């Protein structure tokens, strides 16, 4: 066991992928965003200069190039930096990568990973704070991983790189400074297996990526009030471990979905709908969604905090669900 920064785990996952398979090449360089950790990617580049390509500011072109490279035999890991820039590449991600295996009738696969940093990072304002997971998930043909801690991150990326499908690797700059235990030997983590990050009996909190950390913090506070929260981290949205969610809700009878995306047609909507469809009888209280408010992300800090799901909001929502307060 080692303790490791999440940012270090990103680099370790990239290094293991590069060193473990000659076909793995990186396209793009902002895996660690503009955070101070970014220099670690520079180290990787110096060690493997022939395995990283710095593309032009042309997300559509270079993500599409990743698709073609994957078809030709590479296993590219393509970085889009800030999630908002994936919009530039949507025609290639949504209409090519997601469709190719299917529309070729299984003749062709696209073994690539597409990385982005999503969400409110502090001052990113309306154009640099997106969480496009819901849009990706609304597009059949894409696998989606949403790691929330260093060990999961490494295991999930290893599986993503080995997968023959296009996989979206969802990261968050606010995760980079978090720490976690990492076993000395990490195996690839199979997709579609949720992780119960904290067991509890009063309420299930579903959360992914950075929201897992906030939910765990809230759960700790709620424990002090005698409210026992189970925190479920799906680890992958596609495939989704529906069983684990339904099992947890069957146990607790209550569901709070915490998601950093916008409310309407968001990840939270999907989880709420799944549970409403399949666990109606288990629910002792209405489902509750907590998402970023449906406004573009404002720049100024007090407004920014007002719109995102905070620990405080999670605590309050959980409390009102359990106590009816």
């Amino acid at each position, binding site marked *: 066991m080692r303790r490791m920064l999440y940012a270090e785990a990103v680099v370790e996952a990239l290094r293991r992928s590069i060193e473990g398979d000659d*076909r793995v*090449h990186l396209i793009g360089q902002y895996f660690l965003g503009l955070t101070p950790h970014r220099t670690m990617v520079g180290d990787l580049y110096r060690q493997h200069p*022939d395995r990283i*390509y710095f*593309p*032009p500011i*042309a997300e*559509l*072109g*270079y*993500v*599409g*190039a*990743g*698709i*073609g*490279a*994957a*078809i*030709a*035999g*590479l296993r590219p890991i393509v970085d889009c930096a800030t999630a908002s820039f994936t919009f530039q590449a949507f*025609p*290639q991600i949504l*209409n*090519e990568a997601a469709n*190719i*295996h*299917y*529309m*070729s*009738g*299984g*003749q*062709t*696969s696209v073994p690539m990973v597409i990385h982005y940093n999503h969400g409110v990072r502090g001052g990113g304002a309306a154009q640099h704070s997106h969480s496009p997971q819901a849009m990706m998930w609304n597009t*059949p*043909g894409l*696998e989606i991983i949403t790691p929330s801690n260093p060990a999961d991150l490494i295991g999930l990326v290893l*599986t993503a790189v*080995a*997968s*023959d*499908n296009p996989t979206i690797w969802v990261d968050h700059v606010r995760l980079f400074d978090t720490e976690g235990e990492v076993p000395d030997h990490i195996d690839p983590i*199979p*997709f579609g297996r949720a992780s119960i990050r904290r067991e509890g009996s009063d309420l299930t909190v579903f959360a992914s990526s950075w929201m897992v950390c906030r939910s765990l913090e809230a759960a700790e506070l709620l424990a002090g009030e005698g409210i026992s929260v189970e925190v479920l981290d799906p680890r992958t949205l596609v495939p989704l471990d529906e069983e684990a969610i339904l099992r947890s809700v069957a146990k607790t009878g209550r569901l709070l979905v915490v998601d950093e995306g916008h409310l309407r047609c968001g990840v939270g909507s999907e989880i709420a709908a799944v549970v409403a469809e399949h666990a109606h009888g288990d629910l002792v209280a209405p489902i509750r969604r907590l998402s970023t408010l449906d406004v573009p992300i404002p720049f100024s800090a007090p407004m920014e905090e007002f719109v995102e799901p905070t620990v405080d909001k999670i605590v309050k929502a959980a409390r009102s669900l359990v106590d009816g307060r």
Partner: protein
Amino acid sequence: MLPDLEPKALVEFLELMLLTRRFEEQLIELSQERNIGHFHVYIGQESTGIPALSLLEQGDLSFTNHRNHGHLIARGAEPGPMYAEILGRVTGYCRGKGGTLHLASAEHGFPTTSSATGGCIPPAVGAGFGFQRLGSDRVSVCLMGDGALEEGAWHESANIAAMELLPVIFLCENNSLEALGQRAGEYPSSTMAASDLTELASVFGIESVAVNGLDTRAVYQTMAEAVHRARTGGGPTFIEARTVRWPGNRPIWPELATGNTDLSMAWDASLIREDYAPWYREQDGLLGFARELVSSGFLTSETALKLDRQASERVRKGLAFALDSPYPEPEEALEHVFAPHRG
């Protein structure tokens, strides 16, 4: 002019051109009998695609678009599974999942076909990137229309190909010279301000050349140089092949405006009808190529007609195969969303 090749190769070109032409004429006829949906034909462009793509080898990859029938036939795809795909049968190359818009045959070097305009360009460049990084001498061919140059995908991808000297050939078939709405003489296409399409590539330092797409020799030689350049690390090439839009192609739904091609018009000018005389005389690359082959003595008109009958026969059999083929089970729709995880 004719390419500088063995007669056998030239005759093979004619066979493939005839096969393409008869394949599509048959398809148009079928579309008049039953609703087979929207499709795009390659008629009038055979003299470009067939010599150009003959230069590819096993392992090379081609990324084509909505107007792909001739490209697949050029690389040896069979009429049967092509028709089957177009008619949504399970025996189609894509098991009925792709249709005409996404007709692809990996065994013939067509891994995927995008019908989003410009959609094939980034992956084509990426395949070149992949080959380069793998240290392979394979090449990637981007089969695009002139209209695709209007999409930003072109610009971004051309820059990448040029910066990295990738083994990519952009074969841009400009069939808009006669496009409706075109500002004749001013713009080569209806909605492109560049007065010379090759400049859109040469601005990035990409080797660029325009050829008459009806001149099989020019097409063949230019493509041969481009393939050689790509295989030997010389980087990308942009080829604008200018063809004339077939009159039947003007409406959105193709019509046999010029009738089923009468191959004899190639050597018997008296058969040429008034209505589309310029087409038969100068603009149809297939007739032009046959005319040259026969007049140069590479082939007798009788042999040409025999090859034509053989092509029609292959096409007929292919269509029968397709029509006899079953549709996929509806549940097959659930397959091929994801490749399985191994290990």
